[in-house]
């Protein structure tokens, strides 16, 4: 297996060239995995660039992570490419951080329709807000659920 990071380095270079001020960090954490951290207000531009110029047209999921000790949530869009077979193995983790006391982000459903359910789950499980989300209703939880967002770190199991 080819262990060089040529393709990954090339993608990182292009991203940094096009968004010199907006990309806080872009690294290949290993072969086929690239982490890109952007400022929340610039995520739409970077997302459009990834989809239209670099062919990352296939959303594979969205994760939210509660870093309560740092008072922030991290939202991670996992993206792959279906149309370009040469980069099918490459997964870009597009990350943004929002403050814990005001967890507002911009929805990317218009860019990748497939993220709709994942964003909905992050809304109910972490209490995040996605501006422009077409259906910010409960997905898995009951519609009348009035407890705290259950995936937050401070919510513990009774038996834990």
């Amino acid at each position: 297996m080819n262990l060089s990071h040529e393709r990954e380095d090339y993608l990182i270079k292009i991203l940094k060239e096009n968004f010199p001020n907006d990309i806080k960090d872009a690294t290949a954490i290993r072969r086929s995995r690239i982490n890109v951290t952007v400022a929340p207000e610039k995520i739409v531009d970077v997302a459009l660039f990834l989809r239209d110029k670099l062919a990352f047209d296939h959303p594979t999921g969205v994760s939210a992570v509660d870093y309560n000790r740092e008072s922030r949530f991290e939202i991670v869009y996992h993206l792959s490419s279906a149309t370009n077979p040469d980069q099918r193995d490459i997964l870009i983790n597009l990350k943004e951080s929002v403050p814990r006391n005001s967890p507002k982000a911009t929805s990317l459903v218009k860019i990748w329709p497939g993220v709709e359910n994942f964003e909905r789950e992050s809304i109910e499980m972490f209490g995040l807000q996605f501006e422009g989300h077409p259906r910010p209703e409960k997905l898995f939880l009951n519609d009348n659920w009035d407890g705290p967002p259950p995936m937050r770190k401070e919510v513990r199991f009774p038996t834990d």
Partner: protein
Amino acid sequence: MTTTDKPTQENTLGSPSPDEPGAQTLTLSVGPQHSGSGHMRLIVELDGDIILNAQPDPGYVHRGIEKIIELRNIIRSIPVIERPSIIDASNLNHAWVRAIEELQGVEPPARGQYLRCLLNEMNRIMSHLYWLSIYGVFLGHTTMFMWPLGDRELFIDLAESLTGARITYSYLVPGGVRRDLPQGFAEEAIKRTEYFEKRLDEYENIFFKNPLFTSRAKGVGVLSRQKAIELGTTGPTLRGSGVDADLRKDEPYAAYGELDFKVHTRPDGDSYSRVMVHVDEMRESSQLIRQILKKLPSGPVRRKAPIVVPRGEAYGRVESARGECSFYMIGEGGDKPYRARYITGSYRNMAAISAVLEGVRLADMPTSWWSIDYWPVEADR
């Protein structure tokens, strides 16, 4: 069952004016019921018997697994992460150990890798057969319900002799697999896969060429290639729409890089295409089982791995029966992950349900959404 317009004297008496907009649309709540695979509900809007819009309403089998696995050590979590899809347990198990091993930097021995693929391929057949039997039920074809469930036992018995359990194996552990092949396994497996391929020919005659099936599957529930990609679908659903994406080829893991197999696709994106992709994959998996047993290297099946998730992040993903199953794992150095995001094939394919059902007749609804291979428990987790 409610009409969407205000109940006026005319239409409650059953004589709506056909010109009145919305006079004939009906919102129907289908479920929550056990539709063969765990509870779920579809909210369907109809004009006559044509579906205008269908929204899935999942969550009836949500177990909070992402929370549970944050609170247990990585070994105790294995039986838990298998639960969302017990008919495809080893593939989900594989995604879990891949994420852990990536953080630990542990590479299982070659024989262990082959045995993982062996159980994964057996699971793929078992899962597809279970799915096919429910598809038969939805068409009212009782034979197609009985046969696949009966033939599934061929592989369940094999899996039991390999792992000690019929469906939930917990066979894959960080560093390798729990135990080696029992005596006489290879001969028995070859016999059974060859017999199974003959059975698939019989399925062909009684079902896949049967107008009862073809007339209600060809051209029904079409998901275009473009839609399949932008909705993020995966597995047989994506391949049924003409995209040859398969992680076993695209990012060869375990022993798949050394095995010879084809990725099956169909271009049309209809219900028929998705069914036939499943059938082709079952033949391919039978072939793969024999190939794995022939190429199986000797040596140990397991290497020592610590019960620890080192600091860092990893994205472990595999091609499960219903598409890509992945764990986005963040470790802090303890014996449990700080966060383990669990994304399954069914969860991703849920996005395709509305797209597939739009414009379909109500009578074709069960088979159309079932052709996506959406497993409610696997989606809810």
